[in-house]
């Protein structure tokens, strides 16, 4: 009886595929034979999500009851696995995460279908049809190359277990958030393609699109930040960004959609950059598809490619080529007809927005180049190379610095005139002096820290001056509501910049051998390795170290780094769990390496100043985007009622 649930899940997948086929045929085939397609499009675009959700729930249920007749479950789960990991194991491997991808895609389509009534009828139908096409394509991919409900030939007694690296809270939250962001860009993409078909990009359409873009941008930011945080505590190396190709795969759409957020502002407020906004929207989603291709095809060998299969790679590559090719073709055919109605001066706020876009797109290109260049060399059989942090430090960071400077100055400019250039100079002197005072007080000698500090003050002080100057005549009026999200997002960027530069310049990393009873002083903290002891978990054996941390002779923390050996993976490598004492001003981080002899270990002890600001900054950016969405939706409602 219970086994049948996986068949039912599969049945729902097929049903969803037929449903999405019906959706795309409404606009292409059915309407020619005089069928009223308007109702059909609304219905099928809304039905898609519930159908896939049922299929998804079937898979979750099959995981919970340990239905090892399903290959995906026996590969990724185990009867001893705690129930919450059984649920998150659903998206721990390739098949399940593609199902999650499809589910989220259908969810976005559902939301769009529900809240796009205000758009022109014809436009809306085309828009939903394109989303339907994406849904259909990914479902084909899922069913024919990555069926999560595939049966085992013989039912194993127990499952092979979830990869120990993934048995963590991070797995529960990171992939869904990231996918929400990745896939959310499909809304923006479909919208842009529809604009190409209609040869038009109206101002009110841009207004409608903005919250959607900001929402997927928020999820993407959150997903990346969660991934960074997860890598930080789980891998045991204490880093928060590795320029790993898979990280880059998520970072490229982020950079591109950040550019898009800014160009869409111009389209919405000034009726310019229309063409360019459409192109950016196409690229942003294309990059998230490219990321999927890179990760899923197994072309990259990295920590993340847990399931690889070349036939899948080819399918995605063709699908990717089709989507990008067709959308770019439509763009190049129709872009000429979508004209900007306004013009602007070479030295103006609009130009600065354009520079922001140029820098962000160049940054995206740099990451793309660094990610695929080694692959290209490999394909042509040339010498293998590695592209890592030192490359990006030399190429990517120089693009970021002017960008961050712009983030502090563009918001203070006004559209109408440029008289505030003098104010910028005054602010600059004031901010430089403030930074200098801090540099002297803390006797900073590191150039990067000086730069980081200056950039932090540059954004925050500029924005605060602007805020207080305007408060008097704005009295929390519309301008304030319109800008508050931006203030938060840019200050989030400032906080991130401060954290990133300081932790990278001032971190202290010790790698040494410690016997029980040994102490070591790192910065102001004395770490004492008291003992190690056995403390098993539900499905693993664990050895924990006990480190007492003293500051000025007082015990301030006890850290328990662990080495874990999972039952299912006895012959494998022991997993590392770091012991971390988090703090806003610094993290203390201890991880165990190898056992050297009876009672001494190789130990890594890290002191990470301000590392929390890296993620805090990202969270504040997200908060800013959410505030923006909130106020914009409110505004739209008011506009509609009046």
């Amino acid at each position, binding site marked *: 009886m219970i086994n049948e649930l996986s068949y039912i899940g599969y049945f729902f997948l097929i049903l969803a595929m037929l449903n999405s086929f019906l959706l795309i045929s409404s606009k292409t085939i059915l309407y020619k034979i005089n069928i009223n397609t308007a109702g059909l499009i609304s219905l099928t675009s809304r039905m898609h999500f519930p159908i896939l959700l049922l299929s998804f729930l079937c898979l979750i249920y099959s995981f919970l009851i340990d239905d090892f007749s399903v290959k995906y479950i026996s590969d990724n789960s185990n009867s001893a696995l705690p129930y919450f990991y059984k649920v998150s194991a659903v998206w721990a491997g390739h098949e399940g995460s593609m199902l999650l991808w499809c589910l989220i895609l259908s969810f976005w389509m559902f939301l769009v279908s529900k809240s796009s009534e205000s758009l022109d009828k014809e436009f809306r139908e085309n828009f939903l049809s394109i989303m339907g096409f994406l849904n259909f394509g990914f479902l084909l991919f899922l069913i024919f190359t990555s069926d999560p409900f595939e049966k085992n030939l013989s039912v194993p007694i127990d499952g092979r277990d979830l990869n120990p690296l993934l048995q963590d809270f991070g797995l529960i939250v990171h992939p869904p958030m990231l996918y929400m962001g990745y896939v959310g860009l499909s809304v923006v993409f479909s919208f842009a393609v529809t604009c190409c078909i209609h040869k038009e990009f109206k101002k009110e359409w841009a207004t409608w699109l903005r919250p959607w873009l900001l929402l997927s941008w928020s999820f993407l930011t959150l997903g990346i930040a969660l991934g960074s945080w997860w890598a930080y505590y789980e891998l045991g190396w204490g880093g928060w960004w590795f320029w790993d190709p898979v990280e880059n795969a998520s970072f490229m759409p982020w950079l591109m959609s950040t550019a898009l957020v800014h160009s869409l502002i111009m389209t919405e407020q000034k009726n310019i950059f229309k063409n360019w906004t459409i192109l950016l929207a196409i690229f942003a989603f294309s990059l998230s598809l490219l990321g999927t291709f890179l990760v899923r095809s197994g072309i990259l060998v990295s920590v993340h490619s847990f399931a690889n299969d070349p036939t899948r790679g080819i399918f995605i590559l063709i699908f990717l080529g089709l989507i990008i090719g067709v959308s770019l073709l439509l763009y190049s055919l129709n872009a000429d007809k979508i004209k900007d109605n306004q013009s602007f001066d070479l030295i103006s706020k609009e130009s600065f927005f354009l520079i922001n876009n140029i820098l962000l797109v160049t940054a995206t290109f740099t990451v793309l180049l660094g990610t695929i260049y080694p692959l290209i060399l490999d394909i042509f059989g040339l010498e293998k*190379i*590695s592209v890592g*942090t030192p490359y990006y430090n030399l*190429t990517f960071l120089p693009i970021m610095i002017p960008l961050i400077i712009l983030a502090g100055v563009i918001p203070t400019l006004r559209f109408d005139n440029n008289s505030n250039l003098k104010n910028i100079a005054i602010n600059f002197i004031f901010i430089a002096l403030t930074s200098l005072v801090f540099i002297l007080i803390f006797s900073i000698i590191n150039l990067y820290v000086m730069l980081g500090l200056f950039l932090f003050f540059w954004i925050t002080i500029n924005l605060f001056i602007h805020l207080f100057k305007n408060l008097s005549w704005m009295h929390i009026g519309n301008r304030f509501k319109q800008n508050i999200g931006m203030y938060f997002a840019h200050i989030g960027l400032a906080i991130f910049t401060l954290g990133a530069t300081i932790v990278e310049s001032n971190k202290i990393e010790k790698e040494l051998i410690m016997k029980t009873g040994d102490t070591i002083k790192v910065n102001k903290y004395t770490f004492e390795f008291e003992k190690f002891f056995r403390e098993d978990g539900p499905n693993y054996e664990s*050895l924990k170290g006990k480190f007492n941390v003293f500051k000025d002779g007082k015990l301030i923390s006890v850290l328990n780094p662990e080495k874990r*050996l999972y039952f299912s993976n006895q012959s494998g*490598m*022991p997993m590392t769990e770091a012991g971390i004492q988090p703090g806003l001003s610094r993290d203390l981080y201890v991880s165990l390496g190898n056992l*050297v002899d009876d009672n001494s270990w190789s130990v890594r002890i890290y002191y990470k100043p301000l590392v929390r600001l890296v993620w805090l900054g990202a969270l504040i950016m997200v908060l800013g985007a959410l505030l923006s969405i909130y106020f914009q939706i409110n505004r739209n409602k008011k506009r509609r009622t009046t």
Partner: protein
Amino acid sequence: MKKINLFLYFICIYNILFSHDVIGEQKFNLIQEQLYKQIISETRCMVCQNQNLAESEAPLAIDLKNKIKEMVEEGKSEKEIKNFLVERYSSYILYKPPFSHQNIILWLGPLIFLIILSYFLYRNIYLRK
């Protein structure tokens, strides 16, 4: 205690099979330590998936780290050490690819792209009013 021993046994087996040595205590001066840390953070662990030597605890990485430490202590320069590594493992080991014919697009690509994009946007947004 018996339980601990069993687990230690597993970890030791792992170590005996795969590892011979661990990074020794650091005896060199601050500048040397900095150089050492810089080099191991810019070189790839050849047996790992995508990790630098600093992060890696693979036996080969530990051997290599000890070798690099030795060379730093002998007073070898960054260039000499990197040349040694490249000779032994090819430039795949460097996370900063050499500036060669083959990598010219990699290094100059961003700059060329910046120029082309700026020109493209200038032409399409300013000049086409």
